């Protein structure tokens, strides 16, 4: 038997955490499910904002060039309004092409953490573009020009 360094309680508890994180890990997607559930519950208590729900996510197959320019589409819905976002990349930076259906004049705020990255006005076409973004979590807030209740997407990663 070689001499064992004495393990203190913190070492042992660190080991216990390591063990359980590997032996019984948090189920896949559980965090994402709970983020949505919590955000939805929070939106019920915020009377000035309503949350859109992610209803569909579609991956587009990468092009024949085999480049890492795969794109995907997210569809959010709330109270008769659909929002389609196509997330792709312009070279190095991600971009979003969005459509609000049915189209109506609306202000879009692009939020990251506590910051508003961009504000833009969407006209009668319901279309908007957000080029030159940086990767990370984003969330979009929509303020209809007719003064009806604003709505917001859950955070999503680009």
């Amino acid at each position, binding site marked *: 038997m070689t001499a064992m360094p004495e*393990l*203190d309680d*913190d070492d042992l508890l660190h*080991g*216990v*955490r390591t063990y359980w994180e590997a032996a019984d890990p948090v189920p896949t997607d559980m965090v994402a499910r709970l*983020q949505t559930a*919590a955000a939805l519950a929070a939106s019920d208590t915020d009377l000035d904002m309503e949350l859109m729900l992610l209803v569909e996510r579609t991956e587009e197959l990468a092009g024949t060039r085999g480049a890492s320019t795969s794109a995907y589409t997210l569809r959010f819905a709330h109270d008769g309004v659909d929002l389609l976002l196509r997330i792709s990349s312009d070279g190095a930076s991600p971009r979003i092409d969005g459509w609000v259906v049915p189209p109506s004049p609306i202000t879009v705020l692009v939020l990251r953490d506590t910051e508003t990255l961009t504000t833009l006005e969407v006209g009668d076409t319901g279309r908007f573009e957000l080029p030159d973004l940086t990767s990370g979590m984003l*969330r979009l807030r929509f303020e209809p020009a007719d003064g009806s209740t604003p709505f*917001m997407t859950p955070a999503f990663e680009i």
Partner: protein
Amino acid sequence: MRRCAGDMYQAPAWSLLIVVTFPSTVLSEAPVTIGGAATERPGDVWGEAASAFERWSAGDAVALDELVRVMTPVLWHVVRAYRLPPEIAEDVVQTTWLSLVRSRASIHEPAAVGGWLTTTARREAWKVAKATGRGIPVEDEELARRLPDEGSAEAEVVRRDDDSQLWSAVQQLSERCQALLRIVAFEHRPDYARIAADLDMPVGSIGPTRGRCLQKLRALIGNGDDGDA
């Protein structure tokens, strides 16, 4: 104390002993995170949670996502210590988050949010466990010691992937010790009075039982050859 607040985190001493069994890809990294798991100390997790809660309370809706991301793993491990099946454990964690959203105005001190969440999760887990006839075993530690052949499916995966002294040692602990240490390990400054109530143990015995379970784990790690006895 070997460490002071603010020191860089050091790899536990035993990691140096068992890291030799790891794949070379892990060996090339400093053996700070055993088995590649991103094990954070509860104090750090609680700090991140407090910061996210503070920003969320100030109107940053995205910070709620961060709070859920940071604390959900802790809540998962605390709740699973009550032997609830995965689906029920997830429900308990979800109930905990919905309670937080409803009660956020009552949490005045952001630093308290971690403890509020784990306490709420334990209380809910205990309630559900009791209602469904489950719960943390109360048998004597020695009698409840798990035999090697009783390893669960997930434990088998662990053994195959990484048959370290530590893991075999944790598996040899009684279920009661496993549960108690699992809760204590993920908690930051555990509330012994509350844990004692949940485990049907006298408050005064939690400290000594925790100490005994840690001592047993220490002995098992130092005695790796007994792993299959």
